[in-house]
């Protein structure tokens, strides 16, 4: 019944709704972004093509490269922390101790509750006068004055990273935990019989066998983090003095704040190019890893 002509037609008919939907709401806008990036589109409905002018402007101004570098630094630290904390969490949640099921459940809220609401709560925690972080640090005498974390560039930069890590960690943890549990128990038992300690087994058995999971998750996380918008927008809107303006925030401000759609589209195209590169790396890595598994 497979691979006949009518089967193909049937399959295409089944796929049609999804396909049409994605073409209209994702593929067309993607193409439209590229087209718009060569125009001077703004609020009014008609626009003219201006060639490479938008690109010349954004790369000529100089601060765009700062934004790109800042985005990469922000993304790098966020992804790295997610991986480390996620692995830490997975190891702990994998331990056979009473309460395991409850602890796993308690890991999930940041992932599952409305993202914006979690971020509001962080916003309060970062409050210098009344928030928990500044408050507790003062109570313990570590700092003497209120510390408005989101008011300074450096601390705001790290604060947005921490919140992004907080949102990403549950998924990474649960994913690493699943990968850890799919490692055959016999390996650990054999090593244990030979006298290998817990840490040694982790380093020589668990970690090497989790390389595929770590690579996959880092790349997926890289893409998601690179596109992260809500956290920065709610906490700082890119401020103070653009210290937390990543490429997405920059694009949003250009397009939705100043109504310069053409220039915003050019900035979005640059993001798309980076994301596409990450995508290619991801698909290649996944293919290589699954081939490695087959051998």
């Amino acid at each position: 019944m497979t691979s006949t002509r009518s089967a193909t037609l049937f399959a295409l008919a089944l796929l049609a709704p999804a396909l049409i939907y994605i073409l209209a709401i994702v593929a067309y806008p993607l193409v439209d972004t590229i087209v718009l990036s060569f125009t001077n589109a703004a609020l009014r409905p008609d626009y003219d093509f201006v060639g490479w002018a938008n690109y010349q402007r954004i790369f000529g101004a100089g601060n765009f490269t700062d934004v790109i570098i800042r985005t990469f630094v922000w993304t790098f630290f966020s992804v790295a922390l997610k991986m480390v904390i996620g692995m830490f969490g997975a190891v702990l949640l994998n331990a056979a101790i009473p309460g395991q099921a409850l602890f796993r459940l308690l890991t999930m809220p940041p992932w599952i509750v409305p993202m914006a609401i979690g971020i509001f709560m962080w916003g309060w925690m970062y409050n210098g006068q009344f928030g928990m972080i500044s408050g507790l640090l003062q109570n313990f005498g570590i700092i003497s004055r209120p510390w408005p974390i989101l008011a300074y560039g450096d601390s705001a930069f790290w604060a947005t990273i921490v919140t992004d890590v907080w949102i990403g960690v549950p998924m990474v943890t649960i994913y690493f935990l699943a990968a850890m549990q799919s490692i055959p128990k016999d390996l650990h038992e054999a090593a244990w019989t030979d006298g290998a300690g817990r840490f040694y087994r982790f380093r020589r058995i668990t970690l090497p066998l989790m390389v595929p999971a770590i690579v996959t998750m880092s790349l997926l996380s890289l893409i998601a983090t690179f596109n992260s918008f809500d956290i920065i927008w709610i906490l700082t809107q890119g401020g103070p003095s653009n210290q937390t303006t990543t490429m997405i925030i920059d694009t949003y401000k250009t397009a939705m704040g100043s109504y310069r759609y053409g220039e915003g589209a050019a900035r979005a195209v640059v993001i798309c190019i980076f994301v596409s590169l990450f995508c290619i790396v991801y698909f290649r890595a996944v293919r290589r890893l699954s081939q490695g598994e087959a051998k």
Partner: protein
Amino acid sequence: MTDIPRATEIASVDSPALVKPKGRVKTARAMIDRYKWYEIVGLYAGIALFLFFVLAPFIEGFLVSLKPLSQLFSTPYSFIPRNGSFDAYVTMWTTVEGLGRYIFNSLFISLVVTLAVVVIVVPAAYAFARFTFAGSVLLLGGFLAVNMFSGAVLLIPLYRLMRTMGLLNSYWAMIVPGIAFLIPSSIWLLRTYMLRIPRELDEAAWVDGASRLYTLRRVILPLAMPGIVVIAIMTFIGAYAQQFIFALTFNSRQEFMPLPVGLFAFFGRQEVLWNELMAASFVGILPVMIIIVILQRYLVAGLTAGAVKQ
């Protein structure tokens, strides 16, 4: 650890094994998972630290919701509320105007998105699970690639598209783009699930003269129901969790705002009633919390199945 206790441990594991070979495997597993007291202390300390990071905002948010405003805006900071009360949970319904409406909007938008995603994804997942045709692998890859682009990147053309279709400032402005970005992972998840249904069932139905559509409807659908439930839950949670950027950009009418944007607008006010805001946030979180607790079994399977096997 020295070698001597290890040897005795093994000996003690092995001795009952002489009688029951099956028992040995069990005991070896139990032994390998046995911790020294300091290891147990370390593990619980580590878990406490980890969970504190994960839950701190909720703990703080909850405590804030109990504190009266006068205490909230007083220094020095106190972590534990004095004279805490649940008053904010009562007064918020009047002070945060439209709160009930926001919560309804959030649920309504998520529900419509979920229904649409299920209707679109079920046939598509079946097509990918059962039929191979020229370009089917490429097409599946294309769907997955959608996941890599967030709505934020495509905001400008989406805004223009919504304007052209006349959907701005309506529920549809949030529902239509919301659906698109939840389709790909659901297709992937359900396809994986459907691949596990034996092909012989389709073929048997085919031999008996059932049409393809009939096979899908009467053979596959009932068997795939648990998988469909999982993607429905996942989609609902995803739709509920990610209501921000589209709602912020494509809708400015208060009566259509979902909870996150409604509360975000509230932040801009002169005097923010933080305790009531936090109380409102908790009420907004409640629906998903209930879902998590009731359906956690499906959830873990659903959260991980999509990613683990390629």
